[in-house]
């Protein structure tokens, strides 16, 4: 199929950056870098040296190692939480948009309730009652993502349910399950997939914000948000300690957005209709 691919050098830069971050996060254990939690009180806030390529932080921990191990946490939370939202929200939206009626009223009502609940309060409440852990953080962020995915899925399902190919499938004797799985899901999956990558970007930012506030990843585990938070304390002496993780966070989120947009444009067969 000969479609002009909207993949410029920017797309490949973004994809390579995500690739580097993901690979580094996966193989962090075997990389020749110091432990991210080993402190060296006599080498605090040092500039780049051979032993510490990006220098050390205010407790003398290796910044490069913390960035790489931070990628592990930021990425796994950033990917897993939207998976929860995608799975639950996508299914709810698809069913609500297809079956309509009371179920739809129930789902959209529930979504509005979740949206009305302040996310920070929820995060604080969960942290207070269930304790501060990466799993709890992922669950909270995933739960908060459900409404958006539900809305995207429901809106897309409403559009596609009204199309004649659904009526045609029913006329050919398709049951509810087949119409939802074979006719609607492949269509709804496109906007949901694009929204998922956006969700990853947003979740990484929110995780950073929560960790910055001390509600996210518990110390001493490194995450980019935690590092920015810690770097804030020595902003005048060593601005790089906050700037480096912020830069990495910014580039990663930007890359996910870029790749998400491009993939959506590439995989949308309807664009070729023109």
């Amino acid at each position, binding site marked *: *199929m000969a479609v002009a691919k909207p993949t410029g050098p920017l797309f490949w830069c973004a994809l390579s950056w995500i690739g580097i971050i993901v690979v580094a996060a996966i193989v962090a254990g075997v990389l020749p870098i110091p432990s991210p939690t080993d402190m060296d009180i006599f080498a605090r806030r040092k500039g780049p040296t051979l032993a510490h390529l990006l220098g050390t932080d205010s407790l003398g921990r290796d910044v490069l190692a913390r960035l790489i191990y931070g990628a592990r946490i930021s990425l796994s939370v950033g990917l897993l939480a939207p998976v929860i939202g995608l799975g639950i929200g996508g299914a709810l939206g698809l069913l609500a948009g297809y079956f*309509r009626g009371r179920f739809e009223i129930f789902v959209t009502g529930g979504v509005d309730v979740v949206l009305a609940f302040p996310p920070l309060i929820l995060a604080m409440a969960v942290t207070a009652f269930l304790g501060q852990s990466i799993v709890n953080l992922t669950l909270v962020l995933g739960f908060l993502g459900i409404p958006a995915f539900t809305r995207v899925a429901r809106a897309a399902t409403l559009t596609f349910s009204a*199309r*004649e*190919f659904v*009526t*045609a499938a*029913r*006329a*050919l*004797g*398709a*049951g509810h399950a*087949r119409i939802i799985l*074979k*006719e609607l899901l*492949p*269509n709804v999956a*496109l906007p949901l997939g694009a929204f998922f990558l956006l969700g990853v970007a947003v979740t990484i930012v929110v995780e950073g914000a929560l960790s910055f506030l001390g509600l996210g990843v518990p110390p001493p585990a490194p995450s980019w948000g935690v590092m920015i938070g810690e770097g804030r304390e020595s902003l005048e002496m060593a601005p790089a300690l906050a700037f480096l993780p912020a830069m990495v966070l910014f580039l990663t989120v930007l890359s996910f957005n870029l790749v998400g947009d491009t993939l959506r444009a590439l995989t949308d*067969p*309807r664009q*070729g*209709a023109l």
Partner: protein
Amino acid sequence: MSLLEVENIVVDLPTPRGMLRAVDGVNLTLDAGRTLGVVGESGSGKTMLSRAILQLLPRRAKLSGAIRFDGQDMTRIAPETLRKLRAKSVAVVFQDPMTSLNPVLTIGSQLTETMREHLGVPQSEAILRGVALLAEVGIPSPEQRMGNYPHQLSGGMRQRVAIAIALSCAPKLLIADEPTTALDVTVQAQILDLLAREQRSRHMAMMLITHDLGVVAGRTDEVAVMYAGRVVERAPTRELFHHMRMPYTAALMAALPKLDAPPHTRLPAIGGRPPDPINPPPGCSFAPRCFYADAACDKAKPPLSAPDRMAHQFACIRPLPVKVAA
């Protein structure tokens, strides 16, 4: 027993202004292997009639009357039985092949899906049959087309694919709902001829719904003309075109552009608008626009009857005179 018997069906659609009567007491029969043309302008209820037959009416629509297919009343059978009946016995071809095909699935998967599901055909066999069907409906290099997406085909090709999908489970009744309205004039005739050919060779019953009298001429055995939710004239096709009795049918016919008319001839359009389907007039619904109407026409709805010739029914108390053959 006819294949399809539609008995006095009424379809009501709830609207913010009140109940809209989309179909108002329609009776039809269709035998196996026969073709019925249903003609009417937009909003005359022809599509709602076809949706009622398929039990695919909008969720809140109310239907009364009986629709017997092969002796089974479609309005009373269990959902599962209905699903199986649809799968094996009826199929539809819609107006716009752009929206009646799933944009993100290949032609092949849409074509083989139904066969695998309903006929229990294994995938390899379904692909062979699919390729044969595509060839049958006149698609060149069908093997390659199986892997294509709908947007890679032209409008006419897409409609051929839609027809192939409709034919895949060998239906006894094919409902073609304005199958050529969205297509080029040159492609229209090809698609109609394809439908007619398939209908004959497969001995299917076919209901051809259109707003164009020219489409049903020569391609149907019988024609039912609909106006404001009712059948206003029904006759064997040849009979209808030779001896139109209902002024509405004659007006529709006169509104067709003629090739031999001199340039800049005004088309004799039908003046006025169809009656409000929410508050229909008590008398003949065409009377306000009818050239021949008089006071008696506004009193009561004329029933569909065949006073002169068997099989030629019309609903009019001031019918056009029967032309005497010269």
